[in-house]
Structure formats: structure tokens, C-alpha cells
């Protein structure tokens, strides 16, 4: 827990509100209590949130959940717009740097766009595997991108070899990089750090 607490302090110094959890199970429990009846929930493409397993429970409780992974490609614009406007937005972070900044690389832009400008309460759930003292972009391109490329069936060099070549592939997903040094002005958001590995 020591490492998690160090990163909590660094994030708080930069103005982020942080909660700390021992396990993913605790996060799941807390999230289901936090989200009030009737609230709409948007999800940014996240293996962390997928692994958390809250989606089915939220839907069973009557919440509208807007997650473009779970809809058809034709519906993507509409679903991501609803997620942007939803009462809650759940995602992870690709990396949290030791100086207390949040880092994300995105392809479509809906995840990082909603992270910054979304209208509801943002909860960023990050396992301890996201905490890094090395260059955060290097961490992301080594530990997250290849797995995501494979998961999405993309024909990028990193999907085939595991190594980033800064490719010109039409399937390239690393188009947008966002470093959040502080919470965006007036953004209602929390970072939930978890003392377990979660997602990529």
C-alpha cells in the first residue's frame, strides 16, 4: 500500500481528489453504493472497468449505461455523446506518473475528450500497475498498446511484435496524448487508486 499512498500524496498535491482501495472488490462495492438510483453512467473504453464487472449489475438495477464497446459501430457517435452527458463517467488511466499527473493515449478521442470535458462526475479507477516512475508514454506503449491492439484485432506492428515502431499503419490507435497535470477547472472528478493490478 506504501506505493499507492505515495502516489495519492503526489496526486493530491496537484489538486486531485483521491480515494484508496485495497482491492478491486472494494472498488466494485463502493461504486455501486456511490452511483445513486436512476443515474446514467458512461464508460470510456477500459479493461479495468470491464474487469470490475459493474456493468451488468448497473443495468440490472435499471441504470442506463452508455459504453460504445457494447453497441454497434453505427451507434458509436450517439452512445459516446450520451456518455459525455451522463451523470457518471468511469474510466481508468493508461499511466499515473510519480509527479501526480494522469496520462492517456487515445485513438477516437471520446475517452480523453470526456475525461476532460464531460458533464457528469468522473471516476478514474487505476490499479497499482498504472503507477510509474518511468516515462509514462513509454509505459503505455510497452504495456498497454500491444495488448489493446491484439484485443481490437488491429494490424499494427505492436500487435504483431509487441514493440512500438511509431507506425503509419491505417490501424494506428496512438493519435492523441493527454497529460492531465491538474483537474480541469471546475471538473467534478476523483481518482480511485487500487492496491491490485487491474486492466492493462
Amino acid at each position, binding site marked *: 500500500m506504501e506505493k499507492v499512498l505515495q502516489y495519492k500524496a503526489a496526486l493530491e498535491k496537484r*489538486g486531485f481528489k483521491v480515494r484508496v482501495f485495497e482491492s478491486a472488490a472494494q472498488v466494485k462495492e463502493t461504486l455501486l453504493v456511490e452511483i445513486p438510483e436512476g443515474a446514467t453512467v458512461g464508460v470510456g473504453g477500459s479493461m479495468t472497468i470491464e474487469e470490475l464487472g459493474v456493468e451488468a449489475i448497473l443495468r440490472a438495477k435499471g441504470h442506463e449505461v452508455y459504453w460504445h464497446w457494447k453497441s454497434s459501430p453505427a451507434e458509436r*457517435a450517439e452512445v*459516446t*455523446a450520451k456518455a*459525455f*452527458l451522463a451523470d457518471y463517467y468511469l474510466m481508468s488511466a493508461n499511466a499515473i506518473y510519480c509527479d501526480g499527473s494522469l496520462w492517456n493515449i*487515445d*485513438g*477516437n*478521442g*471520446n475517452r*480523453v*475528450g*470526456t475525461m*476532460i*470535458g464531460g*458533464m457528469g462526475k468522473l471516476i478514474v479507477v487505476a490499479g497499482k500497475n498504472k503507477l510509474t516512475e518511468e516515462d509514462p508514454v513509454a509505459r503505455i506503449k510497452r504495456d498497454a498498446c500491444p495488448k489493446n491492439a491484439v484485443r481490437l484485432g488491429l494490424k499494427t506492428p505492436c500487435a504483431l511484435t509487441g514493440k512500438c515502431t511509431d507506425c503509419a499503419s491505417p490501424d*494506428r490507435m*496512438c*493519435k*492523441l*496524448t*493527454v*497529460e*492531465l*497535470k*491538474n*483537474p*480541469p*477547472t*471546475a*471538473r467534478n472528478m476523483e481518482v480511485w487508486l487500487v492496491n491490485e493490478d487491474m486492466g492493462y
Partner: protein
Amino acid sequence: MNWDIVQPNLEKRGFATRRFATAADARAALIEEIGENKKIGLGGSMSVVSLDIEGELKEKGCIFYNHSACAPENIRQELINAQFADYYLASSSAVSQDGVLYNIDGRGNRVTAMLWGSSKLILVIGKNKIVPKGEDGFERIRREACPPNCRRLNRNTGCALTGKCTDCAPSAGRICNAFVTIEHPAGRSTELWLVDEDMGY
């Protein structure tokens, strides 16, 4: 610094570009492009302000959404309207010679619209935004854009007072929260209008 070298690099990255000799040319083209009865989102870009298109387009039935020009209680709806408008107009605070866009934002509504949306995004970019070789895009912004913007917005930041970034606290009215690097266009309609004059900060 000249768009001649940068424009092909932007296109290689998949950005659609248009080139204009003067801001006046870009202005005329923008008026024609937008036409009548359109909804237009604005994100506080001084380059766009300098084009002075609001009066003429309003006469043609266009509506502008700008959260810094509306009543405080309407800000949330204004931001939503801007994000989901027909057009979103901004600039880019820096463009590297190899064609990467750099932007910093405080509230983040401007970069949000640059990153994602269903509107048609037009970024009008003066040649002063081209980053000198060997300098990082964000360095250009901190040196040339943050100080005048902080002064314009009446913030008590280190850079407003001294011209130098002091990585100040949010309580000082910090405007640099989200640092955004765009290497390739996201999956949204984007056009870069490159102008051979200085515009904005």
C-alpha cells in the same frame, strides 16, 4: 517560419489542410464555408476572435456558443451547445515542423472539442504558431501564449506577472491543466486552415 515545410508533414499525418496567404482570405473563406443558419462553437481562441466573423454570420442566422460570453448560470448548457454545434472554431497553440499539434487548456472545453465530436472542426492557424526547431511545442505555448492569456483573463499566475512559468497552484487561477498532443487526426472531421500571417497568440 513557413508553412511550406510543415504543410506536407501535416498531410502525411492525415490532416486535411487549406492554405491562405492572409487572415482576410481565411475570413472570407470561413464566411462562405459556414453559410447560413449554422450553430458554431467557440473555445476562446484569439485567432478566431481576430477574424471578426460573428457580426456578419449572426446576420445570416448563425448562432454562436461561447461560455465566456454567457450568464454564469447558463455555462453548462452553453458548453454542451458548443460541443455539439455544427462547427467548432479554434486554432492550435503550437504546431511542430513535423506536423504535430500542441495545445494546453484550463477548463478543457476547447481541447475536448479538438479531441472528439461530431461537429466540423476548423482550426485557423497563423504562421507564428510554428515551433522553432529544437523547441518543444509546449515550450512555445508557455513562452508566447500563457502569459498574455493569463493577463487577458486576469489570473494571478507566475507567468502573468513575470512572463515565466512557475507551475503554479490551481488556486492562482492556473490555466494549464490539460496538455494535449495531437499526432494524427482523431476520428472526427478536422480541417487545418494554415495562414501565412501571424494570428492570435
